[in-house]
């Protein structure tokens, strides 16, 4: 049955991006083969089409890249801040110019809807470079004493959920503060980082200041373990974060970790329900729920549970799942077969443990990696789906009666990255926000990001903050 609200297809053109059949590692300003000649394929998760073949870094390549970054550090850190700023401004401008191309590329490689890459990722990527560009010549005023020194070579490992945005979060503050960078993008999404290498070339960035090493976890581990790396920055899973924390123990390496989350989204009975429902949807279904700060636990006050759930299911039934390049698509593909398997397994655990599963009625494409927006009701705090980070479009619904109970349940997690509050009562927002053990609290909104706003977790969600003045500290010797 076709709905009267059915949209005609509105695909964005693929022709704005020219993907080469193969890419090398970007070391010391040059694209180069991996030392052992290894390559891997990157596929489009929505079609399983092979997009390109990419050189796979090994520890030998890591060593080369770190040497290049070390060599470049001397000159780069000695540049006047105002000059470094101009390079960053150039990069920001080129990103804006090439924003459509990069948005399409990111959607192809990651599987997320073009709506999100175009309207969220890319504007934020440019904004991060603009923001930190302005800090480069004002570091004396950042509150870390006069003339704060850069650390040296930064080894950065980023995830696949926001490939270019995470690159921007890592590289912009590192360069602004005078560090040089070796960055390893995730194995499923290396392309936008390699396009960024080309942007560095266009911007005339000195050789070796930014080095990009596509590869797997072994390359990441070799990078964070490298004795000549002064700063380790990692965004990804809590398990890997803990391994890195062990690895850097007893060294002088400064480390920041942005890890997992199991964010609570708390809806009180006086919340504006329609807005709250939109916020719940954004909170857990933005980027197919593959977001560390996702609001993956809905805590709804018992008295409005039925109303909220009815409205939520109605809303989820209108989400459009499919071709990520279609401008009307809300839900794109899951990033990889591996991730899809993980989400599927956790959802099955939820059912096996007795939680009630409901999935939005949408047809899944026959090729690619897809998972329908799903929610679980009758969930208790002991359920796996209420405790483990699923990192997919799966929402667990719990209820509460009093604000104290909401806070207790929200804080009942090893994580502490994000939380949401929905209520019209200002004093309640402030009281609850105050008690939540989370680095970011969104009240009557969700999943908002800005380069001026510090982001980062409490507890096992990691160490340190990215963004804002706070984000400078990670790259300065203070």
């Amino acid at each position: 049955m076709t709905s009267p609200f059915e949209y005609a297809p509105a695909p964005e053109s693929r022709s704005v991006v020219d993907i080469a059949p193969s890419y090398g590692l970007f070391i010391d300003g040059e694209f180069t083969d991996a030392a052992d000649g290894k390559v891997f394929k990157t596929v489009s998760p929505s079609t399983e089409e092979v997009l390109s073949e990419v050189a796979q870094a090994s520890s030998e390549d890591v060593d080369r890249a770190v040497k290049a970054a070390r060599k470049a550090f001397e000159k780069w850190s000695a540049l006047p801040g105002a000059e470094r700023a101009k390079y960053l401004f150039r990069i920001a401008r080129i990103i804006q110019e090439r924003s459509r191309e990069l948005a399409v590329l990111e959607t192809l490689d990651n599987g997320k809807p073009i709506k999100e890459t175009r309207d969220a990722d890319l504007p934020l990527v440019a904004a991060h470079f603009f923001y930190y560009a302005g800090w480069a010549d004002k570091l004396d005023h950042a509150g870390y004493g006069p003339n704060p020194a850069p650390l040296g070579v930064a080894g950065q490992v980023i995830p696949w959920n926001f490939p270019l945005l995470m690159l921007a979060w890592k590289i912009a503050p590192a360069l602004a503060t005078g560090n040089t960078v070796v960055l390893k993008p995730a194995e499923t999404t290396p392309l936008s980082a390699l396009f960024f290498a080309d942007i560095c070339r266009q911007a005339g960035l000195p050789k070796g200041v930014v080095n990009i090493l596509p590869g797997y976890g072994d390359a990441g581990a070799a990078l964070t373990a490298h004795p000549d790396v002064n700063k380790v920055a990692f965004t990804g899973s809590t398990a890997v974060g803990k391994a890195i924390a062990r690895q850097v123990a007893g060294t002088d390496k400064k480390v920041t970790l942005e890890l997992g989350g199991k964010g609570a989204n708390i809806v009180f009975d006086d919340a504006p329900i329609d807005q709250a429902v939109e916020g719940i949807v954004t909170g857990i279904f933005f980027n197919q729920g593959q977001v560390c700060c996702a609001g993956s636990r809905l805590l709804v006050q018992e008295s409005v549970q039925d109303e909220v759930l009815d409205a939520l299911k109605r809303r989820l039934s209108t989400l459009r799942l499919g071709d990520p390049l279609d401008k009307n698509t809300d839900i794109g593909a899951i990033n990889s077969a591996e991730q899809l398997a993980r989400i599927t397994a956790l959802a099955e655990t939820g059912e096996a443990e007795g939680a009630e599963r409901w999935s939005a009625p949408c047809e899944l494409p026959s090729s690619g990696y897809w998972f329908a927006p799903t929610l679980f009701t009758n969930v208790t705090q002991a359920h796996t789906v209420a405790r483990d980070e699923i990192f997919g479009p799966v929402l667990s619904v719990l209820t509460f009666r009093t604000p104290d109970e909401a806070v207790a349940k929200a804080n009942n997690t090893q994580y502490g990255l994000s939380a949401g509050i929905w209520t019209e009562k200002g004093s309640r927002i402030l009281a609850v926000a105050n008690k939540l053990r989370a680095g970011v609290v969104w009240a009557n909104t969700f999943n908002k990001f800005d380069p001026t706003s510090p982001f980062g977790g409490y507890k096992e969600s990691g160490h340190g903050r990215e963004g804002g003045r706070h984000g400078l500290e990670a790259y300065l010797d203070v």
Partner: protein
Amino acid sequence: MSDRLSVFKTYKLYVGGKFPRSESGRVYEVTDSKGKWLANAPLSSRKDARDAVVAARKAFGGWSGATAYNRGQVLYRVAEMLEGRKDQFVREVADAEGISKSKAATQVDAAIDRWVWYAGWTDKIAQIVGGANPVAGPFFNLSTPEPTGVVAVVAPQESSFLGLVSVIAPVIATGSTAVVIASEKSPLPALSLSEVLATSDVPGGVVNILTGKTAEIAAPLAAHQDVNAIDLTGTDAELARDLEIAAADNLKRVLRPQPVDFAADPGTHRLTAFLETKTVWHPTGSLGASGSAY
């Protein structure tokens, strides 16, 4: 007149505002720099360490929820109390560190002044490290520092009192609570400090002081799932590495050991090391692009 026989003091731990003996029933001999017996100090066990964490966690809600003004008053009160008992601390520090009375007096004076310095920080740090973030959208966006929770502190080994105070005061100034391992060789000034803390309006459990073998007590604290951070100041490189590895299990905040001149201006580093940053967003409901028109 015959010499009066002095009354010895039984030194005890300080946990949850009380002065228990070590659960283990063990003590160890504390001597001065010339090897003369001074006292038997409790040799804390893993159980003592766990009890101290429980006490510190219990105290955290109240202490972190107290107003910054109130915390400042309490810290200043510690300085007042110390001022009145200065002679005792000068004697203990001189014995413990084998330095002259006048050098010890300098240390004690500096330690008292340090409480005053941190007392003044309690209600200022939020304005220094927090503030409004000018996001590109109609949102109120504010970052504020919050205490990280329970902090395990390995106090410096050499500076038995000034160093000790320098690592305790910043932890509690910002609202965290502390489990402190005193200097292994010179634990007595720390145990006497606990008597001052107990009479200074510092709520029980906010500071807990353990004495004994540093490595033995620090290991369970570093591995403890309900400890949020660890200050490794009083550890050697090898122990620091082992503790940092153990601390990774629940991603504790780690302050690594580094050479410190405790006589110098401490700066804000030790305050910020045990702070989280919470950022709260709220829509502003902007009424128009033109702003206020009056």
